[in-house]
């Protein structure tokens, strides 16, 4: 470390590795001034993990870039305040000084390692560049838990899995023992289980190396796992800053309290609308004069819209930018949630459970009509691997039945085939084998993960929704009425019909996609991770909307997600998929509460939650290019037996004894 001299000359920076003082950053976009950061002060202490939590547009990434001294130079943003790392000025310092600080004291991990690693260089060379020597590079790769590190040095980034790539990035970030590592959404692109592994790795690295981490994330659950302190950012300002436990469990700011409450967990209440945070983040080009959260705050008072509250200490080491006494906020959010703005009275009254727990599962008398039946469907894609063409086995014999009006969630990691299954049912892909039977109602409709990309950019919302009414023989006026009706149904005003997708926010686009899918209610609504790209507060709104539309329009819903906590609240039943097969199927609550398949158990344990340390299953997901013989899960299975790897063993879904509609595909269930 070369900071000793600086530290000695400035004793007050001993504690803080990095310090941000009254920082404001404004970007010019033509005539607009985008105020990304507006007067933020915080410090990262030596050896601590500071979680920086905020929705998109909160300014959290810009803050991270300013600490790295990597704000865009051309056109340069207007800045004021101070950013120092190890006593060096990262805001106004020369490019050379900032580069030196980055080299000596800083490390960085970004969301997508594929774009931050050089695709044309072997990872070994890239790590050696950061580490200085080959031995050190191997040591670092071992330290971040890359198996067979010496051999991996010769791999190109694209030859590694997402988890391994992120580990390589982390190895490069901690090379040279930096004082501070900026990690910007390092686990967002990873599967739950790999995410749990990486979080555990970051925690252990902090303990071993003693460097500080600035953990930038949109997910309170992730920050809760790993951070010592949490700073909640809203519209470029600090809303709350304090020790993790305090911010999570005794929030003094209504925004952090609402964020915590709208977060989905495995214990969220099912069967009633989720608690949501209404509204959207204020426009950074013209934020309101008062408290930026005032328009969405359930506790807002008149004076909130006039003066902008500064973060003040409400307890030692606990700052909150709210004029209300912390006790009042805590009381308002603590026991029984107050009637939030969205849960309207009649909706609360018409509280038909999202999961009809009383569905007569065993009532053989009236077998519900089938909305979609998938029978032994297989699908193999031909893909290029190097110079050879190989088969990617996306689906390897899947059977599933969705009853009319039922909601089934398909859960799995990337590569499990869950999206392919939706696409086969939608008719976007043709199955190699097996059959799809659909109900007699309107054909299936799909809601995509990226709603923006699913809306033709040059057509108006009205034209897009109206397209589905073409065969209904309606006049232009009638068609317009139906479009407005559909928009109203998803909570959008009629004038949105004249807008184009590019003019809408992420939440509005997802609503438009839903309106388009339901203007003629389909028999089955297929949802492909519609919330995974949305902020926490928006995700809850969309999930509520899907539940309400399903109830009002009597649709069946097939909901693909990688997130068990989402699956649990949207679905009556959950199907867990692994490498192209369903490994467990049963009522949502039971699958989560008492998982039977070892894979489901591992999934449940890996879900990040407040106050729970997730247990990560070691190892990498197997490749659908070359599924392991026998039970595909056997190489990672903690309770695997030799018989599991027998190429002749084909795990079938078997009814669990004593439980009517639960099936598991595991050798242990067969033995029983």
């Amino acid at each position, binding site marked *: 470390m070369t900071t000793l001299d600086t530290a000695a000359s400035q004793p007050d920076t001993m504690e803080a590795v990095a310090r941000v003082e009254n920082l404001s950053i404004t970007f010019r976009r033509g005539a607009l001034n985008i105020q990304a950061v507006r007067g933020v002060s915080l410090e990262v202490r030596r050896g601590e993990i500071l979680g920086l939590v905020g929705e998109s547009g909160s300014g959290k990434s810009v803050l991270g870039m300013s600490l790295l001294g990597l704000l865009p130079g051309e056109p340069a943003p207007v800045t004021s305040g101070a950013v120092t790392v190890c006593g060096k000025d990262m805001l106004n310092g020369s490019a050379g000084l900032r580069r030196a600080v980055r080299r000596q004291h800083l490390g960085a991990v970004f969301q997508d390692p594929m774009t931050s690693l050089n695709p044309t260089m072997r990872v070994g060379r890239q790590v050696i560049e950061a580490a200085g020597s080959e031995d050190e590079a191997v040591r670092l790769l071992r330290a971040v838990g890359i198996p067979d590190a010496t051999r991996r040095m010769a791999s190109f980034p694209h030859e590694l899995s997402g988890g391994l790539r992120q580990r390589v990035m982390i190895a490069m970030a901690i090379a040279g023992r930096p004082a501070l590592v900026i990690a910007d959404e390092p686990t967002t692109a990873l599967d739950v289980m790999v995410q749990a592994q990486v979080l555990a790795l970051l925690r252990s690295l902090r303990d071993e190396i003693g460097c500080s981490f600035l953990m930038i994330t949109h997910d309170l659950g992730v920050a809760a796992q790993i951070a010592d302190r949490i700073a909640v950012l809203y519209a470029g300002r600090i809303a709350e800053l304090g020790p993790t436990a305090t911010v999570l469990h005794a929030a003094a700011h209504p925004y952090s309290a609402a964020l915590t409450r709208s977060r989905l967990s495995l214990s969220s209440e099912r069967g009633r609308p989720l608690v949501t945070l209404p509204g959207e983040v204020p426009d950074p080009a013209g934020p309101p004069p008062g408290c930026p959260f005032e328009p969405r705050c359930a506790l807002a008072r008149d004076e909130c819209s006039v003066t902008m509250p500064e973060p003040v200490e409400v307890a030692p080491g606990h700052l909150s930018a709210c004029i209300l006494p912390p006790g009042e906020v805590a009381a308002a959010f603590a026991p029984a949630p107050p009637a939030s703005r969205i849960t309207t009275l009649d909706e609360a009254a018409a509280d038909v459970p999202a999961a009809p727990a009383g569905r007569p599962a065993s009532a053989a008398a009236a077998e519900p009509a089938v909305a979609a039946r998938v029978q032994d469907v297989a699908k193999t894609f031909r893909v290029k691997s190097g110079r050879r063409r190989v088969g990617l086995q996306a689906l390897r014999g899947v059977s599933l039945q969705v009853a009319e009006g039922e909601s089934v969630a398909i859960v799995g990691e990337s590569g499990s085939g869950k999206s392919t299954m939706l696409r086969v049912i939608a008719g976007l892909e043709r199955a190699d084998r097996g059959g799809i039977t659909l109900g007699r109602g309107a*054909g299936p409709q799909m809601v995509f993960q990226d709603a923006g990309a699913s809306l033709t950019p040059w057509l108006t919302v009205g034209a897009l929704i109206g397209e589905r009414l073409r065969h209904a023989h309606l006049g232009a006026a009638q068609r317009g009425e139906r479009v407005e009706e559909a928009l109203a149904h998803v909570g959008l005003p009629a004038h949105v019909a004249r807008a184009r997708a590019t*003019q809408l926010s992420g939440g509005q686009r997802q609503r438009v996609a839903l309106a388009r899918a339901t203007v003629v209610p389909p028999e089955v609504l297929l949802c492909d991770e519609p919330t995974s790209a949305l902020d926490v507060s928006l995700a809850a709104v969309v999930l509520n909307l899907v539940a309400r539309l399903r109830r009002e329009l009597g649709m069946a819903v097939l909901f693909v997600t990688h997130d068990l906590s989402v699956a649990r609240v949207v679905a009556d039943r959950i199907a867990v998929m692994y490498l192209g097969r369903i490994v467990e199927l049963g009522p949502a609550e039971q699958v989560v509460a008492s998982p039977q398949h070892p894979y489901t158990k591992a999934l449940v344990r890996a879900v990040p939650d407040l106050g729970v340390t997730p247990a990560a299953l070691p190892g990498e997901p197997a490749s659908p290019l070359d599924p392991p013989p026998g039970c595909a899960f056997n190489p990672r299975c903690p309770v695997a037996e030799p018989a599991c790897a027998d190429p002749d063993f084909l795990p079938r879904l078997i009814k669990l004894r004593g439980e009517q509609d639960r099936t598991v595909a595991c050798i242990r269930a067969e033995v029983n």
Partner: protein
Amino acid sequence: MAVAEPYIAPATPPARRGRPAILRAHGRLDVAAASLLVLVTLIALLAPVLAPHNPIQPVGLPMQSPGSGGFLLGTDSIGRDILSRVLFGWRSSWFAALAVIASGLLIGGLIGLVAGTLGGVADTVLMRITDGFLALPAPVVAIAVVAALGGGFVHTLIAVAVVWWPFYARIVRGEIRLLAARPHVEAARLAGAGRLRIAVRHLLPGAVPAAVITASLDVGNLVLTLAALSFLGLGQPQPAPELGADTAHNLTYLLQQWWIPVMPGIAVMVLALAANIAGDGVRNLLGDR
């Protein structure tokens, strides 16, 4: 109750976000480019009115220097008014270029759209044909067409159009292939749109900017190509006023009466320059979507 979640209107009306700011930043350039385009077209349209003399008949003493004898740009070797010849030549060059571009966009766009939408064998066959045309050199085709159909400006235009469309076919086809892989096309399929509807409503509009930008930057090229063909004697037959031909045939006077070949040459340059600036303007307008 249909509306459960209140819709909170964004602070600024959505329609005013993003793009207008970009437009404003480039606004001045776009206005300049657009007015240039209008000016060039106006000159072409009004050439008969603007021209002070008959371009084909000798109207004064030969080889008068610019400004003398009331001839702004002087007279040529047989006493025709150069200004009038340049104006009429301007007119024919400009409209010829526009005609070839329009036909190229139409034919190339259609073939590119069909190939890009259908994919597979149709794509391969259409694109190989396109490649074949792409390999033809414009002057050779022009000579062949003129030889087959006889001389004449229209035949030259046909020849140029034959070699010009493949560029647009390639560009449109490439754009369509990119767009076809986007989710909005699948969403349209699920919404019940047929092949034709997807091609025309959900694919074609996305390829228009690229094609129009290329086309607008192409006008300058075409003016030069047409001038070059006239230069080779493949353009309008004498004595019709043609910028390229007038430059070529009068090169011998370059040292003594420089204005005779230089004036039409400058007109070609100005025309090409104006088209390129206008093309840049169009690109700024459409490219920043």
